[in-house]
């Protein structure tokens, strides 16, 4: 990370303000006005639109191996998503992923 203290705090404070603004928006200022249907539709997909894109490069080209493809990490990612889809349990999925990663790193 090349960001200095000023930049880091700028990010923290602006992200804090922005997040509060989103949480306060309707409750605080806009009142009882329904969002238009198309906006609700787009907003529904924001988490599932951001997380996979954020994670995919970290799985395929992990920084810890200098960006080379690493089978234990790919297997761990697959185990995590598999358990998460089947059990819908955050902790179970994290434990499955971590377990697979450590087993894979030890084995391979």
């Amino acid at each position: 990370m090349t960001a200095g203290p000023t930049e880091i705090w700028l990010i923290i404070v602006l992200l804090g303000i922005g997040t509060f603004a989103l949480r306060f928006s309707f409750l605080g200022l806009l009142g009882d006005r329904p969002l238009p249907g198309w906006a609700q539709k787009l907003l529904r997909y924001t988490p599932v639109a951001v997380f996979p894109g954020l994670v995919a490069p970290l799985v395929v080209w992990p920084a810890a191996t200098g960006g080379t493809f690493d089978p234990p990490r790919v297997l761990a990612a697959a185990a995590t998503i598999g358990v998460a889809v089947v059990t819908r349990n955050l902790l179970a999925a994290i434990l499955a992923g971590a377990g697979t990663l450590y087993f894979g790193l030890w084995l391979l």
Partner: protein
Amino acid sequence: MAVSTTKSAYGQGIAQGLPFVLVIVPFGLLFGVVGTEAGLNLAEVMGFSVLVIAGAAQFTAVQLMTDNAPIVLILAASLTVNLRMAMYSASLVPHLGRATLWQRALVAYMNVDQLFAASSARYEQTPDEPLRDKLAFFFGVATPILPLWYGSTFGGATLGATVPPAFALDFALPITFLAMVGPLLRTLPHVAAAIVSASLALAFAWMPAGVGLLIAAAAACVTGAAVETWMEARG
């Protein structure tokens, strides 16, 4: 009489909030560890958890800071993750919209996913409850959740510097995000959006840090909405 029901609404809130401790504490610990590993000091890590209190957005920001993305893109991606909170805000209006400005501001500051889930479920079951009881319930749920979020972040941050590289903590963040995505893949539009997001992020990985992700996320949102519209039209 009114006082005692308000008290019990607060107590019921605490009881509803306690199970979330199992999610909040590991997540907070992990943020503390990941933030410290990324090079943030204790005050900066705590600044995130106290001023932002939105774990997923905090992880997003830290990852993009590690990639040395420009501030504008870091903020854009992290706030996109938080856009759902505008929906939460809208759906609380019928229940808490008549609270004082300060109470609404406090509710807004505290309204993390788990608090919203517990409160909105309660408000749907008992919509005619008095406002003070609804607020008491909300602050009851917050009572175990928020201090433990701050505390576990602090714990993770003090622990983070001492974890050896053999623990491969670089991968804690991807695993956490994938674990969060899994339960969201309920419908075809969600799955389509996730696939578009991951593939475009990989295809655009050559772009400056953060740019590819934003394009991928925008395309994925449109994909999800389009597939949903298509399925509605098909019936």
